[in-house]
């Protein structure tokens, strides 16, 4: 049985751990609230951009938004895959650990994706955990094109712009077949959903709302406009993905730290119990000795 001093020391250390996890939980909770607000604030821009893209695509594609066959060549590439080309994976993980299965789920999913590739592929990493994973990776024919770290928990649109630029550059220069983004989506405070999102080529756009962009004047021409709009459209999507991942990470960390605080509390309670029991045992023993000594004297 551990000595009293040892137990006291253990209690102290568990207590300080508990304080840290509690503080981390509270920080994560506060940041998560802000991250959720950022998602909401980003929505109008993305929604309107989506509407404009759909409307324009419909006009250019002769009234069928999904029919990219009528598009000029420079636009076609956004919608049509080059089946000979390699693929690119964009893995968006966290910068830090201590957030439950957040990072390991991502890594497991991307490993699964890699095993399905039968030739060389490219990667872009976001977050320190993602970068480290690709550094350790062996046995795959993989080239990391870009690394991005230290952007969480303060994602701004500038980050999305840089990332979008890199993705587009890779897509056109390396003549890739497709680009997939692996990230965690923020479903609710208690739940994150892993998503493998094919960002390029762009999935056929939904039909435009009736009456949108009718009788409009365009400056410059429609197809030139759409070509300038599509990169922005992608960047807005990437921005949303980064924000989602950020909120998901924070909520995962909040839950993990909540569980850790609860565990620490439990351990502390059981240590306290054994401390008290042992102290009581010692007191009883001392009394017994005292009584025994007194009796010996009396007799």
């Amino acid at each position: 049985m551990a000595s009293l001093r040892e137990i006291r020391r253990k209690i102290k250390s568990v207590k300080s751990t508990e304080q840290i996890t509690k503080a981390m939980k509270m920080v994560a909770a506060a940041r998560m609230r802000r991250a959720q607000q950022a998602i909401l604030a980003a929505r109008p821009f993305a929604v309107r951009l989506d509407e404009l893209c759909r409307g324009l695509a419909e006009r250019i594609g002769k009234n069928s938004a999904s029919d990219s066959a009528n598009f000029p060549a420079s636009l076609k590439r956004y919608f049509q895959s080059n089946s000979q080309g390699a693929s690119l994976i964009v893995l968006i993980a966290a910068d830090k650990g201590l957030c439950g299965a957040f990072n390991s789920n991502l890594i497991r999913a991307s490993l699964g994706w890699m095993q399905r590739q039968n030739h060389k592929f490219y990667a872009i990493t976001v977050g320190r955990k993602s970068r480290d994973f690709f550094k350790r990776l062996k046995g795959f024919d993989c080239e990391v094109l870009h690394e991005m770290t230290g952007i969480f928990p303060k994602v701004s649109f500038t980050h999305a712009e840089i990332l979008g630029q890199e993705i587009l550059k890779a897509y056109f220069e390396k003549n890739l077949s497709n680009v997939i983004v692996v990230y965690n989506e923020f479903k609710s405070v208690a739940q994150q959903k892993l998503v493998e999102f094919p960002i390029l080529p762009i999935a056929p756009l939904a039909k435009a709302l009736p009456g949108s962009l009718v009788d409009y004047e365009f400056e410059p021409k429609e197809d030139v406009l759409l070509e300038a709009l599509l990169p922005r459209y992608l960047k807005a999507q990437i921005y949303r993905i980064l924000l989602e991942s950020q909120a998901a990470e924070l909520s995962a960390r909040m839950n993990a730290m909540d569980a850790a605080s609860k565990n620490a509390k439990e351990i502390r309670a059981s240590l306290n119990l054994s401390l008290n029991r042992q102290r009581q045992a010692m007191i009883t023993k001392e009394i017994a000795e005292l009584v025994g000594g007194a009796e010996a004297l009396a007799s």
Partner: protein
Amino acid sequence: MAEKILEVEMVTPEKISFREPADFVVIPAFQGELGVLPDHAPSLVQLKVGEVRVTKGGQVHHFAISGGFAEIKKNKISLFAETAEMADEIDAERARQAFERAKAETLKPGLDPLTMAGAEASMRRAQIRLQVASKRSR
């Protein structure tokens, strides 16, 4: 006289940064500045890096925007830009530093065209911001 009012809305990816009624708006369209009054024909216009002027009751607000789009509907104009800053928000000192830095970058010998273009773009952005910031007190 039934007054026609133009509703101006500036949407950036991070937030809706400005939403006010106005009498007259000037936007930096792709082929030169474009003035928009109420009852303008509906159009979709690409914007370049430049200055937006919003006039309301004789008062002019200046904004620096970094490219994007404008959608003009009957009496509503929505500007989509990566950044939109009001004159009062601009840190003139920082803009000046950015300008100097970008200028020094463009003067470096043996620069590849891509970096050069990037530096020139940031120089232009800083210049616009400076220009807008200088109109703050007027």
